[in-house]
């Protein structure tokens, strides 16, 4: 809840900038196409097509297109999302103005410009405002999807709530977004009533409340910006979209705050988005896994020892990407194929090779990334796996799906507390199709040379073993403990005074 003002502020900022830009672009464009009839059909068609792209896809598309994460791609996607209702209603509003009224205006000697400003625009206003209201509600809703592209919004509650099974957080996010949509919608309506009835007081009241809202929304950021002490730099901590990453991001952030740094957590980003964001300096610090970098970024197919992978990766990151690997955290979170215990017993499954003959009858479930990663290719080719069907789902849902028999095999994370809790068995990988996955702390080049920061984070290195991580994950995933508390639990492990 303490994050609400911050998330709401960001959400409001995203929404209002997108809407105002949408209005500034689409109202003039709409007016233009009512004059130049040849442009009307193509313009509306393009806007309609853009609208059919699902919000999350449009947001995702902006990241590779712009090569950036965060506010800019989110804003651009939301601006595009606001286009159709504003554009269509501007055009409809103007075209619906009674032609005899326009003819009378022309006959009385009004110029085209006077007809537009004194007659057509005022008469089109109710329809135009209705379009803006539709856009407002859409944009507020779609802005919750901006979280995975690295922009803070009320979606942070929803996404992290989904991953950490925190229903309260999800509800807070939903209710806050809905309330924001209602408030903005009603304010726009108030402005419309005020203009059509030429009620100056009402209009002023609406505009003042809108400005107050903007001010209130921005105040956390303004206070943050003005009230900051040395060191002024905000360290941006990134995380991937699963529990372990949320806990680690929180742990890192807590640690940095204790040392006097300001931090900002961007959670729920995909592996490659996160890596690129670090290279661009948009993310300062996050935890990745050696095997992920090895297979996905370095494109290596060989699998040497854990130590060699770590050493080669560290050197390679430093040389090619100017990223500092501060060191391993002390635990490994490998991908593994897990099956139900009773199946393992019944079919004598102990290693992945035992699955090979049965695979054509089995369903395999995995997270958003796995089937697209080279590790899957390697696993599939090494063991000649040909499953009946591959099902992609949210990691949260995988465990329930396998225990309820909806899938037979899942790609589990070895530190996941749910493997034991759901009675799953992880199959061995004797052919070493999968690389090792030591968790490593990565720092971007512009914080790497900060001795206070590397010192603050130094305590994390080799400070978390497999068991601690698994327990922390279990606290969140199974015991319903908050991410903050799980992060505190982890911290106890490396802060001797707390034992």
């Amino acid at each position: 809840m303490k994050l609400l003002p911050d998330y709401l502020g960001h959400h409001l900022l995203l929404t209002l900038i997108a809407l105002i830009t949408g209005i500034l672009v689409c109202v003039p464009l709409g007016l233009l196409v009512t004059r130049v009839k040849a442009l009307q059909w193509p313009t509306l068609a393009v806007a309609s097509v853009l609208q059919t792209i699902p919000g999350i896809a449009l947001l995702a598309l902006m990241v590779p297109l712009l090569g950036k994460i965060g506010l800019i791609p989110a804003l651009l996607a939301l601006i595009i999302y606001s286009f159709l209702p504003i554009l269509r209603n501007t055009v409809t509003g103007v075209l619906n103005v009674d032609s005899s009224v326009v003819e009378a205006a022309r006959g009385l000697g009004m110029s085209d410009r006077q007809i537009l400003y004194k007659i057509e625009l005022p008469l089109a206003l109710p329809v135009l405002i209705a379009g803006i209201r539709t856009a407002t509600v859409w944009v507020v809703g779609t802005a919750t999807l901006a979280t995975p592209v690295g922009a803070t919004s009320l979606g942070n509650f929803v996404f992290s709530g989904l991953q950490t099974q925190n229903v309260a957080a999800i509800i807070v996010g939903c209710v806050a977004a809905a309330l924001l949509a209602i408030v903005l919608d009603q304010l726009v309506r108030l402005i419309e009533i005020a203009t059509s009835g030429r009620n100056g007081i009402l209009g002023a009241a609406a505009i003042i409340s809108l400005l107050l809202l903007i001010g209130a929304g921005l105040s956390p950021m303004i206070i943050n910006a003005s009230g900051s002490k040395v060191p002024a730099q905000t360290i941006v901590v990134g995380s991937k979209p699963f529990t372990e990453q949320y806990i680690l991001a929180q742990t890192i952030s807590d640690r940095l705050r204790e040392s006097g740094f300001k931090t900002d957590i961007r959670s729920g980003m995909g592996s490659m988005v996160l890596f690129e964001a670090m290279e661009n300096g948009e993310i300062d610090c996050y935890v990745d896994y050696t095997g992920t970098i090895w297979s996905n970024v370095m494109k290596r197919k060989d699998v040497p020892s854990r130590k060699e992978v770590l050493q080669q990766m560290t050197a390679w990151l430093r040389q090619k990407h100017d990223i500092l690997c501060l060191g391993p955290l002390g635990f490994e979170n490998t991908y593994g194929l897990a099956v139900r215990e009773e199946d393992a017993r019944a079919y004598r499954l102990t290693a992945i090779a035992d699955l090979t003959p049965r695979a054509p009858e089995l369903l395999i479930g995995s997270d958003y990334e796995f089937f697209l990663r080279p590790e899957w290719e390697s696993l599939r080719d090494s063991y000649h796996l040909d499953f009946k069907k591959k099902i992609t789902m949210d990691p949260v849902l995988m465990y329930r799906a396998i225990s309820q028999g909806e899938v037979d095999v899942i790609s589990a994370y070895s530190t996941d507390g749910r493997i034991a809790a759901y009675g799953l068995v992880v199959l061995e990988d004797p052919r070493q199709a999968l690389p090792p996955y030591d968790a490593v702390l990565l720092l971007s080049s512009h914080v790497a040379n900060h001795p206070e920061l590397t010192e603050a984070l130094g305590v994390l290195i080799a400070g978390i073993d497999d068991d601690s991580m698994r327990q922390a994950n279990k606290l969140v995933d199974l015991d319903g403990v908050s991410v903050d508390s799980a992060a505190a639990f982890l911290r106890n492990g490396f802060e001797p005074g707390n034992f």
Partner: protein
Amino acid sequence: MISVRGVSKSYNDGLTWAVKDVSFDVTAGEVLALVGESGCGKTSTLKMINRLVELTSGAIAVGDRDIMSIPPVVLRRSIGYVIQEIGLFPHLTVEENIGVVPELLGWSVNRTKERVDELLNLVGLDAREYRKRRPEELSGGQQQRVGLARALAGGPKTMLMDEPFGALDPITRAGVVEEFRKIQHDLSLTVIFVTHDMAEALILADRIAVMKDGSIMAIDTPSELLSNPGDPYAEELLSMPQRQAKIITEIAKSGGEPL
């Protein structure tokens, strides 16, 4: 006052002609009716005078000035324009509707206000009562009175009217027509109006131009056209009210029995 010389209009680069080589003069204070069936070119002819429709060939002068030498908006502000649909601005009050042309002409607020009151009284509406009303609060007849006042606001000497009373019910229409005649006479307005109602043309006009297929078939005073039309089409059209009157008289005589 208005001189139309050899004017033609084609909407499709000469493939067909909406108006073909039309010429007539209207003297100051005279009322000319353009009559004929739908599509005969009467409305195109009217709209070419204030350049709502640009002529293809020929020349038109209003008050001795070639209309092509005057910017269209300036020309239109000096000519009153009334249409059947009235076209009052629904978002403006009666006062603001009438004040449109004075505002365009840059009149002071006070001068415009006085003019609005004067015109409302002229068209038979109480200024105090109607000034602040919206068009939607007015009856059809009241709306057309305001439309008339709006057209007169800039003090034009010339009025162009396209089926000005066509949308009104017969009783209202008779009242408005009567008032308009009086206003026209008092202000000695030069008027060209389009109608397909022969009785209205005969009652209101000093002269009538009968149009067919873009050409003027006959142009003369009502009495001359009635007694000596000189054109079979004009004769048929103009005798219509008389023939209808005859039929009505016979129905009355027959005591309600079908003929």
